[in-house]
């Protein structure tokens, strides 16, 4: 039962922080709350027995991606002005709650007899090893493609964000 308690705790933290991300006006605060959400989710992963996922969640998301957000916010100096205005909040909020309600009803319907039974042969405690094996055997090809993709993304982002300082060659 203690796990379930922790699950609820972290779920509440994650949801609260996520709401903060979309509602706070200060982008840095939003970014920090995003980190909180991500770490809470990492904790959920640990509770779900996915330690490796939790580690890369923190390592990549919190340690790299959100830092990138923070950098850009700081570089563009967005904290100074109130840019985070909402768009006609009331209308959207209504819509949003409707959608959420629909989704929860859907899950209720879905979960009646449609979900697979929990596998009895749960994963071993050392599932880093198993994830590694899967990544480098069955998923080797997608894995290599993913590495290529991220290389492309790096190059692309440099090209896009670079200041056009060099004059055109023939000009």
């Amino acid at each position, binding site marked *: 039962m203690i796990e379930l308690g922790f699950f609820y705790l972290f779920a509440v933290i994650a949801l609260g922080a996520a709401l903060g991300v979309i509602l706070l006006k*200060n982008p840095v605060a939003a970014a920090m709350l995003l980190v909180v959400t991500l770490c809470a989710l990492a904790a959920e992963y640990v509770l779900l027995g996915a330690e490796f996922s939790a580690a890369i969640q923190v*390592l990549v998301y919190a340690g790299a991606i959100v830092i990138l957000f923070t950098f850009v916010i700081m570089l563009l100096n967005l904290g100074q002005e109130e840019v985070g205005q909402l768009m006609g909040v009331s209308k959207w909020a209504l819509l949003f709650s409707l959608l959420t309600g629909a989704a929860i009803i859907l899950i209720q319907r879905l979960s009646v007899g449609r979900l697979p039974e929990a596998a009895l042969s749960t994963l071993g405690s050392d599932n880093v090893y198993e994830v590694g094996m899967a990544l480098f055997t069955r998923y080797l090809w997608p894995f290599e493609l993913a590495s290529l993709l991220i290389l492309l993304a790096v190059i692309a982002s440099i090209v896009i964000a670079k200041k056009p300082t060099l004059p055109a060659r023939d000009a």
Partner: protein
Amino acid sequence: MELPVLDETAVQIIATVVKFLVVLVAVLHIPPVMIWVERRAPALMQRRRGPNRVGFFRWRLWGLLQTLADAVKLIFKEESVPGSAYRGFFHLAPLIGLIPTLLFVSSIPFGPGIEIGGWKISLSVIELDIGALFILAVTGIGVYGVTLAGWASNGKFSLLGSLRASAQMISYEIPLGLSLIPLVLIYGSLNLQQLIYAQSVVWKWGIFLSPISFFIFLICMFAETNRAPFDLSEGESELVAGFHTEYGSAKFALFFLSEYVAMFALSCLCSVLFFGGWQIPFVSHALLVSLLGVNLAALVGVATLLLKAAFFMWLYVWVRWTLPRFRYDQLMNLGWKFLLPLGLANICVTALVLAVMGA
């Protein structure tokens, strides 16, 4: 009234809390000692005396009490917050910086397990199967403290210093992570305790099996903690003091604390990864246990690890007073154009050698 019978979970929770408190208290003592070392060491190197006046009646204690005075001064100083600062983050930043380093220290296995009342208790606060990954993850989080501090101060020097520091830390996290991979490959585990057990004899130490990893790790150690010769984030001649320019008194002390804790944690990690952790060279743990019993042997192990870590702490100071500061572009070039390819090549070669030897 009967005492409730303790079960395994309860014992472990209690032990964890106790271990954490012990580590916290112990860690609090690092900065004073280190400040003393940092002031006496250059004196030693520059053939002068250094602080040696503060004392207790006629016992001067080599100036040890000077740091006590400094600490008292720091804590009781008036606290000032710049008017334009983002207050919440300004107050939060030092804490955000300290927590990951504490988590880092907590994951270090300081010794073999001990036995109290039949319960086996390991000597790391949190023992994880993915210790190495965990360490990388918390180092990643550690950047936020610095970044936020600089940004929340809302000052030119602070922001520049924090951007420098965080870019530097992110950059050097990558070679740091790469330098760990060959060890993981060789020893086949991410668990730090198991890494130590795998280095049971001296010639299996990490430094001998993967010297290039050690080389990369050593450089990254200095860069990750923003220590000389990579202390451009402070760069007092250019940036006044970098991200903590605006901080004073207790919050400054917190930054101080987290810097030294990070140094200590990295020193411990270095000993664990490359120098057999808590094991005494040429003396097997089993022999110690048979001579001294489990608990005493564990104590000896802790002392050994601390001794090894102390050497690296000394190395920090030594290097700081020996090498000049890098320029920023040199720093980035070193990280991205030298250490990164070297680390990748190191992984490839190690994997190749392992594959060949395995085949």
